[in-house]
């Protein structure tokens, strides 16, 4: 029935959790404020890049502090984190694919407009 944490470890971890809570709250507020205040004429990609970076920082606090990975053995942390490397190509490949669909659709719209209209689809612009 022994405690498996010493008094000092317990206090340190409780403090760590509250620190992470403050960080998560501050980051979320910053994100919402940025989403609302960002001027139209400023570069939207900069903002999106910031959102993604801040979300990854939030994920770090949740996985590291709340899910305790910071205090686990290195081998365990690696066995959980390394598989997510696959996501990098997963994301690149599928966003690429999505952009290509859009391209194809736009190209075909131009081509179909130039075909002499034999009735049916596509025509009727003039």
């Amino acid at each position, binding site marked *: *029935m022994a*405690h*498996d*944490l010493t008094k000092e470890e*317990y206090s340190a*971890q*409780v403090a760590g*959790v*509250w620190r992470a*809570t403050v960080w*998560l*709250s501050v980051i*979320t*507020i910053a*994100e*919402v404020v940025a*989403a*609302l205040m960002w001027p139209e004429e400023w570069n939207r990609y900069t903002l*999106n890049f910031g*959102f*993604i970076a801040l*979300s990854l920082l*939030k*994920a770090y606090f*949740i*996985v590291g*502090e*709340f*899910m305790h990975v910071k205090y*686990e*053995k290195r*081998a*365990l942390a690696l*066995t*959980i984190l390394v*598989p*997510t490397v*696959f*996501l990098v190509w*997963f*994301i690149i490949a*599928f*966003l690429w*694919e*999505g*952009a*290509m*669909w*859009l391209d194809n*659709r*736009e190209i075909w719209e131009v081509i179909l407009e130039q075909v002499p209209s034999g009735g049916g689809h596509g025509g009727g612009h003039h």
Partner: protein
Amino acid sequence: MATDTLAHSQDATQDEWMGGQSPFNISYGKLMMWYFLVSDAFTFSALLISYGTLRFSTPTWPDPNVVFSAMPFLPHDMHVPLGFVSIMTFILILSSVFVVRAVQEGHMMNKKGVLYWMFLGILGGVAFLSCQAWEWMHLIVDNGMTLYENPFGTKHFGQLFFLITGFHGFHVFSGVVFNCIVWYQTLTGVYERRGHYEMVEKIGLYWHFVDLVWVFVFLAFYLL
């Protein structure tokens, strides 16, 4: 001397993997919960990446500041962009914090502490689900956003929104059910007799994962 330390540390790492103990220094149940969460993370990634693919393939996309601007108890013509979802996010973060506190009290074998914090965690989960129910109802009934039509723009938006937040909401719902079971078993002294509160930790991992997924759902639908 250097070779001595090297040889020694190699022995130490090999010994860990020679059996008779957990090389990761955690129990089988916790490790399997982790591996389940890794697989669940891939499921959510697939959903969010399909959101990205469809969004990249669509010429226009609704502006979240316009879609998500309603608040309960306020007049309909009053717009608070992202206000309600910020509240939902805070509720989920706080609920996650309460459950971490329950886990920590479990390490100290403090039954009262586990009951107190786990109760707050359950309240947070129920509050989040209620907010989500209101948000869905508002979008469907007041705005007419369904799987088939979307007044804000492309219908992909509504379909992906209901699919992904629905799948996440179902995780929250099952998490609340698990938390209730843990709370009840703590109350009846099951873990006290067992000599440890590891079940609180395992269910806690699941609960934090739900919070982790929300970070990325929030990113995809409300921020980008």
